């Protein structure tokens, strides 16, 4: 099966401010590499969970896919066309195929537009339906996300966080997208509301056969919703595979540590248990470590790791960028 969204060698770099004093001191122009040669494939109907610490480039990757950041290298192929090569008007027309749900439902809705104005603008601008069908379509979309028509003529300020996120999802769905990019869509919500929104994603995914790129730092959430998982560290994908496989048999030491670090609800805390915890701070993306970028914090790192960057087998179903992947998991079955 062909990938619906094919990302190849995607690099997003930001130029850092270059001051006159830097020029006088003959310092080099520095770049912050937020996303570094990322390859990802999104199969139709998949829910790909993208996990990683804050600052690892998850959001930059999402925004580059959406066209909000211009990638410095690489291709983003959506349905056969490379989005990075499209002209302004072609790009704008293609926006209906891929839509985004943002992290903060409080700032992602225009405070001066009612729900109806917002949805109508989309439908009209993208010529989704005839003028007479618009009210009916708006009703259908709102019902799809668990709201009703009586909510349509209100401003965002009269909704709660969960309702706002429903509106954001409605806004994304109005254009009948093939792909939804959800950037931490539940992390700003109360725990009690998170489950509702997650279930809505699952339900809509089944009903509309959506493909979802779901970004989160919450492993429980990702495990619940995803069919595949990609683990990101400092702009690189470290491990990729089917969700259950990754959660049961993590191969990359970083994935393993990440899973260990997450508090678990189902097991009582055992004070004698020796847990591998991550040491040190996240290195600066302006000054990446040599070799494997995880080696300064990795418990299994050797000299080879400091010298050579491990390669990523792009064809394998479970890929891992590590010189010493964990092949046998001694805790098999626990997780």
């Amino acid at each position, binding site marked *: 099966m062909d990938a619906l969204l094919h990302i190849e060698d995607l690099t997003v770099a930001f130029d850092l401010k270059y001051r006159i004093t830097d020029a006088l001191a003959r310092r080099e122009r520095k770049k912050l590499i937020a996303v570094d040669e990322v390859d990802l494939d999104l199969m139709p109907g998949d829910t790909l969970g993208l996990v990683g610490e804050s600052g690892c480039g998850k959001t930059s990757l999402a*925004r580059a896919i*959406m*066209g*909000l950041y211009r990638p410095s290298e690489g291709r983003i192929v959506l349905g056969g066309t490379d989005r990075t090569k499209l002209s302004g008007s072609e*790009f*704008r*027309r*293609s*926006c*209906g195929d891929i*839509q*985004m749900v*943002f*992290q*903060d439902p409080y*700032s*992602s*809705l*225009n*405070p*001066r*537009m009612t729900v109806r104005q917002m949805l109508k*603008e*989309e439908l009209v*601008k*993208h010529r989704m339906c005839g003028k007479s069908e618009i009210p009916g379509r708006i009703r259908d979309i709102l019902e799809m996300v*668990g*709201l009703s028509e*009586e*909510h349509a*003529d*209100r*401003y965002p*300020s*009269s*909704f*709660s*966080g*969960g*309702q706002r996120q*429903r509106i*954001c999802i409605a*806004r994304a769905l109005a*254009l009948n997208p093939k792909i939804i990019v959800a950037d931490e869509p539940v992390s700003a919500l109360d725990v*009690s*509301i998170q489950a*509702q929104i997650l279930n809505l994603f699952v339900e809509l995914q089944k009903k509309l056969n959506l493909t979802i790129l779901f970004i989160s730092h919450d492993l429980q959430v990702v495990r619940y919703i995803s069919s595949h998982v990609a683990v990101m560290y400092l702009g690189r994908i470290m491990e990729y595979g089917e969700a259950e496989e990754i959660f049961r048999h993590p191969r990359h030491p970083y994935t393993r540590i990440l899973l260990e670090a997450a508090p678990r609800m189902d097991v009582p805390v055992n004070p004698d248990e020796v847990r591998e915890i991550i040491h040190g701070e996240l290195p600066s993306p302006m000054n990446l470590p040599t070799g494997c970028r995880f080696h300064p914090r990795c418990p299994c790192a050797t000299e080879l790791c400091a010298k050579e960057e491990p390669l990523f087998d792009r064809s394998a179903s479970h890929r891992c960028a590590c010189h010493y992947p964990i092949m046998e998991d001694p805790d098999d079955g626990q997780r």
Partner: protein
Amino acid sequence: MSDHNAAVTRPARRKSLFIPRSISLTCGLIVLAIVVVVALFPGIFTHYDPTLTDPMSMLKAPSAAHWFGTDNYGRDIFARVIYGTRIDILIGVGCVIVPFIFGSLMGLFAGYYGGKVDAVIMRILDVFMAFPFLVMVIAIVAILGSGIRNMLIAMWVVGWKEYARLVRSEVLVARQSEYVQAAKTMGYSELRVILRHIMPNVISSAIIYGASDIVMCMGTAASLSYLGIGVKPPTPEWGAIINEGKAFIQTAWWITVIPGAVLAFVGWGFSMLGDGLSDLLRADGQ
């Protein structure tokens, strides 16, 4: 689903503007109403002709016949103030509306595009900032010649900078917000993103400034008339009336003081209006 029935009972729209929300807004609206009625129908407030001279009643103190007294040509000051309202309001509003639109657009573009566009607009603005407001206006009027039209042009040229600065600073914040990012991912054109999505959220401080700017423009117009380069006599304009009275300040104080007090009163009214609007518009965004 508990979260999404909680807000159902809340009012969907804000209440009518005519329900007094604050004392300042009410005061401002009352003054505005008086000023508008006087400007539209000056004839119902006085039967005197504002330009008719009467040698028999020169420099008369305020009385039942002449409420605000008369000037050195025997003209009724009350009638001149009433008929002057229309001119002063036109100057005040006319001075604000063009800089408001132009300055806000410049601020929107400078803030949204940043980089070179921003640098060019802001450097032009710096040039205007470097000159004192009144000196610049006087210089331009001196070049173009006096009269209401040239005075308006001069005020337009120097007046837009504050609006551009205000709007730009708000756009710098708004363009980072997720609703603007969302509008971009919807595939809307940049002009639509700027005018439909950013503008309504950043314009309130410019509107508030505009209300008080009307007062300042009326003050400036009065100053120019006072300096003799604004409205030409015998047109009744408040600044011009004050100017004409200055020679008689010791013998006939009412020619300068009363129109000055009227100017101050209207100015206070518009300030109140701006104050009230700021409460209203800021609260609306919540």
